[in-house]
């Protein structure tokens, strides 16, 4: 039998084109080459055998010798070859006549693009592994562009299903009830807690003031129970308190709370801030005030260790340290300060605009100069002798 390559139809018997074995498990779909293996040898052998049998029945076997048989076999063989050739000819003829003969010409260059690559270190497309960190997608819920490898944790928070989602949502509700201005800031808080959050770095500076989640697991856990139901219990129930209600606390508890947490009382919620002692939303002055208010005039702001809480964003350590120092020293320059609080601070110091100006220049300089901020700290300490004043509405205006 002549060697036939795949793709050719063969044979023609009684007016119908013979297909090949015809056994395919899947019906061929248009995009896949129709299965047409050449007439398999078993079938052609069978046919040969059958024709031989038929011919032998025609003539009696007795008068035949080897050469005659040979001749018959040759004849049958020639028949089959002729059939298949003719079949092929008809095929080509039909293709030319109906105009699809050219389809067989394929473009070898573009075919090379799709060849499977089988080399170590490369995938089948010839690409290097692990280069897909920059893939992004659009969240169907909030329509924001998210890094693909962080999509699942984002979606969890976005749909309100995560561990912290209910707490974040609560805070948002509590805040939006009182303040309309800061709503847009709070919205982005969900993602601040994402690690490797690939948002624009320019936004980080703006969000620094609210970067500390008061309810993150690293906060003093013992006090979480006092907040109401545990938010871990049911992610779909909303937690109604974001701070600590100090009326319920005893003196000992208050004392211990004030040694570990900011404790500044928010004017709107009348609750104590549960953030760390270096919480940038409140000043040291406020913290001191609160402590004196609760614990008496001898209360001292506990020394804060310089351990950093970097769960929010990945900055370098030195940068974080410097930003904290700046917050501590430049209370009158924090974005949350209103004009009234600035003036009251300045009165206390008597330095007026000079100090603020000098501090502004410090910020413009490179972050490496620690010398500049020292004076800021120094002037901060002068505030101690100031008489305690109950929290005034002016200080708390823009904080939350």
């Amino acid at each position, binding site marked *: 039998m002549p060697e036939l390559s795949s793709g050719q139809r063969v044979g023609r018997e009684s007016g119908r084109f013979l297909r090949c074995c015809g056994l395919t*498990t*899947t*019906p061929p779909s248009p995009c896949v080459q129709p299965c047409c293996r050449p007439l398999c040898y078993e079938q052609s052998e069978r046919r040969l055998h059958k024709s031989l049998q038929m011919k032998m029945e025609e003539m009696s076997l007795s008068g035949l010798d080897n050469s005659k048989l040979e001749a018959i076999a040759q004849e049958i063989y020639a028949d089959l070859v002729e059939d298949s050739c003719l079949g092929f000819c008809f095929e080509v003829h039909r293709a030319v006549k109906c105009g699809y003969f050219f389809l067989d010409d394929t473009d070898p260059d573009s075919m090379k693009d799709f060849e*499977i690559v089988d080399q170590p270190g490369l995938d089948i497309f010839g690409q290097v592994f692990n280069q897909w960190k920059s893939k992004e997608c659009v*969240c169907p819920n909030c329509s924001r562009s998210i890094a693909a*490898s962080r999509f699942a*944790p984002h*979606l969890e928070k976005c749909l309100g299903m995560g561990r912290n989602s209910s707490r974040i949502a609560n805070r948002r509700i509590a805040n939006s009830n009182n303040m309309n201005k800061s709503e847009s800031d709070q919205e982005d808080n969900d993602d601040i807690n994402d690690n490797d959050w690939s948002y624009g770095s320019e936004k980080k500076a703006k969000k620094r003031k609210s970067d500390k989640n008061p309810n993150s697991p690293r906060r003093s856990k013992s006090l979480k129970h006092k907040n109401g139901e545990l938010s871990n219990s049911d992610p779909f129930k909303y937690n109604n308190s974001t701070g600590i209600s100090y009326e319920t606390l005893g003196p000992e508890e208050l004392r211990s709370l004030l040694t570990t947490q900011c404790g500044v009382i928010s004017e709107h919620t009348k609750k104590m801030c549960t953030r760390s002692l270096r919480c940038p939303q409140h000043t040291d002055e406020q913290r001191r005030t609160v402590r004196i208010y609760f614990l008496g005039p001898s209360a001292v702001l506990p020394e804060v260790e310089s351990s950093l809480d970097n769960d929010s964003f990945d900055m370098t350590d030195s940068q974080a340290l410097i930003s904290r120092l700046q917050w501590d020293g430049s209370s009158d320059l924090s974005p949350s300060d209103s004009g009234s609080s600035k003036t009251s601070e300045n009165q206390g110091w008597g330095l007026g605009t000079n100090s603020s100006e000098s501090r502004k220049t410090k910020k413009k300089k490179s972050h490496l100069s620690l010398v500049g901020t020292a004076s800021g700290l120094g002037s901060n300490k002068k505030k101690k002798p100031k008489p305690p004043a109950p929290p005034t509405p002016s200080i708390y205006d823009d904080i939350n």
Partner: protein
Amino acid sequence: MCKDYVYDKDIEQIAKEEQGEALKLQASTSTEVSHQQCSVPGLGEKFPTWETTKPELELLGHNPRRRRITSSFTIGLRGLINLGNTCFMNCIVQALTHTPILRDFFLSDRHRCEMPSPELCLVCEMSSLFRELYSGNPSPHVPYKLLHLVWIHARHLAGYRQQDAHEFLIAALDVLHRHCKGDEVGKAANNPNHCNCIIDQIFTGGLQSDVTCQACHGVSTTIDPCWDISLDLPGSCTSFWPMSPGRESSVNGESHIPGITTLTDCLRRFTRPEHLGSSAKIKCGSCQSYQESTKQLTMNKLPVVACFHFKRFEHSAKQRRKITTYISFPLELDMTPFMASSKESRMNGQLQLPTNSGNNENKYSLFAVVNHQGTLESGHYTSFIRHHKDQWFKCDDAVITKASIKDVLDSEGYLLFYHKQVLEHESEKVKEMNTQAY
């Protein structure tokens, strides 16, 4: 006259129709059908090859950069980005998109969406997923829409955490089945239980449970639809392994090395007659008394795609662990010994060896393997996919690499996907039987 051969469209059309009629006649009289089709009624004809129409020819003429898809083409393979612990989803997607019959369904655009809001239809998303994965695009696809839809429709799976691939498979099939409303071919109006959507056609098998009363030998039979078969492994606390020495070997061509459990062993155990103890007496329907009984599970109806799940994650009262015993599984599997029809020989404890009878009805080929590496708490899923016969690829999230058959067969195995080799015509008689069974 030009004395040339002429091809007239009308005459050819007539010839085709006549041939179809002749074949239908042939099909209804013979017991064994010679041509394989999807089980869509009315298709009693030879599968027509694709012939170009005039407008298509013109279009093709304008585009000389044609490619013929060969078996060494990357088309059909594409990586999937891990969205954060979603390797379990990626493996199941790879397995489903390489299920031949499902692939043909979706690539021929057979889905007609009847959902009130098509953007929430998981079947539409599957369709789009198939288009993406078969596009030939080398950069990996980001299946974020799929994740979103699955979380919406299968709430119990929602959440950023590592999950079980098998659980995901069942949930995904369930949602797809629910959303397939528009595709039911020949809805059986009287029988709401018999859905004829593509998921049911492909994945649903019938598991027969026979409870035999020891006293009167009356058998009570129930048939439950199932999408997969979960198999206990040796070494689990629930196992009962009658590992008798010197038993017959190389059923299904598995290399039978003593000490290594095979898939066939697991199936044998699954379908063995189990004697329910005296504490579990069941009221027999025929003799109306509480008697001890024997229960046996067999396959009543084999699905087109059989999914085997090894119960490797054990959550018992004593312990939670992963059973990492290697189970050897074959490339080709014959399910005949585990059918309900082979039950009689099983009652004696003998396993009827499949003979080489030309009966291909119950023969299956492996096309996807999902593996888990790691511990019960944390691990990573990868999968092996058969792209063409004897051409396997390892899919590890975004990275697809060529794999050898040995790699596939040596892997631990957690989910195994087998596809029937021969798809039958569903004759009217068989359809009737199926509706009664459910």
